[in-house]
């Protein structure tokens, strides 16, 4: 049986770890709320831009806009969203595993990577993938200008012909308990068809073509912003869930150790009494 002092020490250690995990859970919950409200706020803007583009695209000759032109996809680029920090369950592991499978299917030499978040950069860089761009240390002060910067960087490389096709791999935020890894076709721009009929007849100023030209970068920016927000919300949700589990496990462990501690204490007392009694009896004789 372990000695009393050791058990007491272990209980102390686990208690302080439990404090840390509990604090992390609370912080993640607060950040998650902020991320969710950001997502809420971005929705009307994203929805309108999407709506207008959908309305316009069928009338536009794809070949007149470089960002719409389908070119033979010889070189592909992948934008992978991960977090900067760990302790968020299998959040990063899952997405990296899946991203790797997707990228390896294309061929390691045909793929260029843009890693958003430190974990992804470390993972792919170490394994010799061609990481052309990476971003880290911004998640805490995430704002729209980050999205603009990333979208512009990805787009300008595309326009320079460094790659012909861009896919985004990110964690989609379903709800607090559920994040789904999703793949999105970022460039050239494709919009899912839906049956939303816009009957409104618009006047376009200066012209339809120019409105589209102005709209496409706006659309790419807001999409990038959406990926950032969803990935951020997913990360915080994953962290919250895993830290909650960790806190609970620490509690279980403490309960078990307490039981063991009490048993050891009892045993020690019993032994001592036995010694005293037998000692006294020896004197009487």
């Amino acid at each position, binding site marked *: 049986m372990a000695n009393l002092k050791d058990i007491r020490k272990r209980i102390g250690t686990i208690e302080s770890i439990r404090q840390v995990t509990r604090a992390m859970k609370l912080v993640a919950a607060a950040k998650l709320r902020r991320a969710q409200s950001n997502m809420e*706020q971005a929705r009307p803007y994203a929805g309108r831009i999407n709506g207008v583009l959908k309305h316009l695209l069928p009338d536009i000759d794809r070949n007149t806009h470089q960002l719409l032109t389908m070119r033979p996809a010889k070189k592909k680029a992948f934008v992978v969203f991960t977090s900067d920090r760990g302790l968020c369950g299998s959040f990063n592991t899952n997405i990296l595993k899946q991203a790797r499978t997707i990228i390896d299917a294309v061929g390691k030499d045909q793929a260029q990577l843009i890693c958003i978040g430190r974990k992804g950069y470390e993972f792919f860089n170490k394994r010799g993938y061609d990481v052309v761009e990476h971003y880290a240390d911004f998640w805490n002060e995430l704002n729209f200008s980050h999205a603009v910067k990333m979208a512009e960087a990805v787009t300008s490389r595309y326009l320079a012909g460094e790659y012909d096709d861009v896919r985004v791999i990110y964690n989609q935020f379903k709800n607090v308990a559920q994040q789904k890894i999703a793949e999105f076709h970022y460039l050239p721009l494709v919009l899912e068809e839906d049956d939303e009929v816009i009957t409104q007849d618009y*006047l376009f100023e200066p012209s339809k073509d120019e409105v589209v030209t102005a709209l496409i970068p706006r659309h790419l920016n807001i999409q990038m912003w959406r990926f950032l927000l969803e990935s951020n919300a997913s990360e915080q949700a994953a962290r919250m869930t895993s830290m909650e589990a960790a806190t609970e496990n620490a509690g279980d462990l403490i309960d078990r150790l307490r039981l063991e501690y009490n048993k050891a204490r009892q045993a020690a007392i019993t032994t001592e009494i036995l010694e005293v009694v037998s000692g006294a009896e020896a004197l009487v004789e």
Partner: protein
Amino acid sequence: MAAQFQLEIITPTQVFDEGAVDYLRAPGVDGAFGVLAGHTAAIMALAVGEIKVVKGSAETTYAATQGFAEITENGVQLLVESAEHKADIDLKRAQDAYDRAMDHLSHKHDEAVDEARAEIALKRAINRLKVAGK
């Protein structure tokens, strides 16, 4: 009372609901245009510039960046990447951005992309300073 229309300024991070307004002046790509109630349905590309809203005798200005205006019979929605109320503009930040962009442009860089970016940054900074200075 003159006819009014509903105006909303929508950005990725915020929605300014102006409610019923009398007049709007927005910076179109080919120059500023005005909107009154009963305007024909239109979609107009917007440049970096100043948005002016008149409500009765009150007047509000915003410094806005690129986007577009959607005008329907129900009202006007301005979708811009950022809009700042005149009173909220951080003058020092705008001045810093202005200096940075100027500095960037005066030292020749070989990358055309960088230059284009700096030019847009400069436009935004000038616009902010202009709106705030009024």
